[in-house]
């Protein structure tokens, strides 16, 4: 008897139906004990291992390859060469505007100061001058460190107020002689540099990942030693915080400005 049928027509109780339309179960036949044993069990286990191994390969090797597309910069740029020429280091091209905002990647108008004409022999420079300077077109650089539109980051707070070096976050990019391959996450559209070079999430340098937790690593580290690596930092941080709860008098952890997280208020970085 189906539940719904009856609910739909509760009055339609035909007594004869009930008597005849009945299915009874077949008599039970117990399972043969051999089937559950030995040979079959081994096969089953083998397949388990096979599935297990295959998925590990897919997850750790194939998946990262599929996830990221590789893109080449429009112009192969030599940072080292430019830094050597530039009078004020990074800031010659990556400078602060008068309103305190950070200029980021220079525009063509800035490049033109030196590259109005082809200066050297480098074919990349020729390409640059011909395709962009002469055409008055901006170079569509792929920016490794580009954060999502919802992120606010104050270079001024870090570089001017906290007197941090560019290298601290961006690494020794100034020493590079050619541009790296730009890896773009096919789902999110963001650079792999932001969301993690290493698929397991482990990083060795601060510039290998720039997610929220990575900001936190540095911002929380004030109390800990400067030299520890990321994992150690966060471990030490947790320990210290735990201790501070247990023995509030012994250790004081500086509280942030947010009520919910006691860290800094969320919108300091999220816009």
């Amino acid at each position, binding site marked *: 008897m189906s539940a719904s049928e009856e609910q739909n027509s509760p009055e339609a109780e035909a007594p004869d139906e009930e008597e005849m339309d009945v299915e009874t179960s077949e008599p039970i036949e117990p399972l043969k004990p051999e089937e559950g044993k030995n040979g079959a069990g081994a096969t089953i286990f083998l397949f388990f291992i096979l599935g297990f191994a295959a*998925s590990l390969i897919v*997850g750790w090797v194939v*998946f990262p390859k599929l996830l990221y597309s590789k893109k080449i910069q429009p112009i192969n740029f030599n940072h080292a060469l430019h830094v050597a020429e530039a009078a004020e280091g990074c800031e010659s091209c990556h400078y602060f505007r008068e309103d305190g*905002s950070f*200029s*980021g990647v220079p525009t063509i108008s800035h490049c033109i100061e030196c590259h109005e004409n082809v200066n050297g022999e480098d074919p990349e420079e020729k390409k640059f001058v011909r395709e962009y300077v002469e055409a008055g077109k901006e170079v569509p650089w792929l920016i490794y460190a580009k954060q999502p*539109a919802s992120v606010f980051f104050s270079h001024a707070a870090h570089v001017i107020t906290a007197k941090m070096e560019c290298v601290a976050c961006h690494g020794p990019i100034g020493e590079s002689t050619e541009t790296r391959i730009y890896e773009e996450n096919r789902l999110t*559209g*963001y650079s792999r540099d932001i*969301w993690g070079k290493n698929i397991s999430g482990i990083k060795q340098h601060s510039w290998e990942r720039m997610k929220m937790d990575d900001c936190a690593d540095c911002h929380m580290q004030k109390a800990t030693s400067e030299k520890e690596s990321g994992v150690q930092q966060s471990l030490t941080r947790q320990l210290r915080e735990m201790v501070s709860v247990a023995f509030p008098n012994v250790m004081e952890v500086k509280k942030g400005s947010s009520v919910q997280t006691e860290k800094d208020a969320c919108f300091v970085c999220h816009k």
Partner: protein
Amino acid sequence: MKIDRRSFLSFIVGGAAGTALTPLPWKITDDLSIWSQNWPWTPVPPNGEVTFVNSVCRLCPGGCGITVRKVDARAVKIEGMDGYPVNDGGICPLGLSGLQLLYGPTRIPYPMKRKGNRGDGKWEKISWEKAVSEVVTKLGEIRKNNRPHGLACISESDRGTVAGLMARFMSAFGSQNFIRQPSMEDSYELALYLMHGIRAEAGFDIENAAFVLSFGSGVIEGWGSPVRMFRANSKLIKTGGKVVQIEARLSKSAAKSDKWIPINPGTETALALAMAHVIIKEGLYNKDFIENHAFGFEDWTDGQGNKQQGFKSLVTATYAPENVAEATGVEKAVIVSLARHFARASKPLAICGRGQGRTSSAIGEFLAVQALNALVGNINQEGGFHAISDNDYIDWPEIETDQIASNGLQNGRLDEAGSENYASVRYLPHRFFENIIAETGYPIQVLFAAGANPLYSLPDTKAVKAALDKVPFIVSFSSFMDETAQYSDIILPDHTYLERYEDVPTPIGLQKPIIGLTRPVVSPQLDTKHLGDVILGIAKGLGGSMAQAFPWKSYEACLEKTLGRKLDTLLDKGYWSPAVFSVPEWIKAFETASGKFEFVVSDQDGNGDRKTKPIADWYTGVESQGDPVTYPLLLIPYDSMRLVNGFVGDPPFVIKTVEDTVLKGKDVFIEINPKTAKQLGLSEGKYARLTTPKGNAKVRVHLFEGIKEGIIALPRGLGHTAYDSYIADKGVNYNELIGAVYDPVSGLDAAWGIRAKLGKA
């Protein structure tokens, strides 16, 4: 080894277990959430260098200074310019929305020529050369036929260099038919001409007044230069100045005023005269001014030796408060007390011009209100009324008209302004269109629409349309696809104000002259052309005396030449004002025949002879159109800062601020007193059929205690049929429901409302 169902299942289970130990599921989960935070169809505004450009807003006659924030080449926000004399940092909703017009879908992207029938909305893209040459050919033809007066132009404004060039073009061409959109300026200019004897603009020193008596002026609803009025109003409140609002409906201005005096609409003239009655009777008037600087207060004898009634005997004989109490709906005691407060205030100022002042009114009302200002002697005084002679910075060489043009100019204006009947009036747009329909005078063969949208904003839009149907060639210079542009034959789109240079003369109502400068904030976004350059181009195309009348290479050259050294100040500071500005003393202020302020009103001919109608004829209002039996209700319009009522409609941001008791879906609400609604069997939100002698519309009912029984009110600024889907087909255009009512003495349209009936729909 047997691969069966169970082995397969085992494989799957193993795979699942293994997958859980890889980054795959976790990374995908994370990345999907990041994808959801970063949907490709949600735009990401590019970052860049922030710069600011100062300019002047041209979206209404208010002339506010604006500062536009740019990010690289994009304009991202319009803000009020700090320190600008008109608005000092403040800005209105429309001004803030300018970028929606600049970048919006209502723009006309390139010159277009009509395909199919007029109003079908089918257009053909043409080049600028072709567009200009089409117009030149058309104009050449009518000149060849010796009918240059068959060209007419309707314009938003008649001041500044662009309107000046257009007016000059008309004169050089041989037509007097340059017409300005109607506004309270028409009435104020005429009143000033009649009483002060000068062609000047009305200025109000509201900021410094102590008592502002407003006859229905929407002080905080867009009257005059809106932001400046807001600031002035705030200053009044802070300094303890009083505002009394005389108005039929509890408008925002009425609600914000210190006292709201509900009045029966159309009886403002009588009330003003009754106040004058009290002031004169009680001897509260400024004796120095009246005795030494005014004429026609007492009875007098004209040139022919006829006894003429003076102002004093007019009001004492006819306008005792008790006589007007019933008609106006204002009690005698209230009138008396109001008159006393007004006359005794240190700096009283009476103003008029209903709502935003976007219509002309009966001249009698303006005369009566100005008579109040004269009685208290607050003319050209601090906190009083000022007559501002327009900036005379435009000083172009005389036009040397050719024979054709001279002949054409002999034909006079089609609207009869300046003719014997309407001697001192400058523009009568409604009469212009009526004469076209009636085929009175001569036919108009080409019509220019420059910044004006008569098909929407003139009363009786059906009649305007009928008139346009009789004009064979309509040229629109609009930047936006407005109703008139949609109904034209060829469009030569102007830059928007954010893409061009233009001088901005003293904003309406300001008490001292300034010049502002509109300048390009962004490069032209579309294939448009500056109206000034287009005029120059057409003139050049016509050649001969036309080309000679325009000796400038380009509009910019013309502007540079016209402004001279002022331009440097303008570019530097954003505005120019005279280093020293002093208002003329009473002894020098009036250029009437008597050299005094004149209560008696007389048109003067060239010899200074007065042609006088009896004073009682001047100081009257007009009745509303319609028969009170068929139409038991009175329909009046109301204005709102949230409903734009000029040559553009509400941009999306502004229409978003409109309350849901004004517009809901596509339906407009009519305001009605709950008692009246009850009598009609209508309740809140119900649909109703609104009928006037001019038309009918489906509306919804909004009960409002701030409106008198028997009166209903409809907002202006809705019911557009053009522009984009954010504004088109929403609500009802008030102008479709009314017609012009002639002021018999001035010829101006004096309609303030119309009789109506409301039935269930």
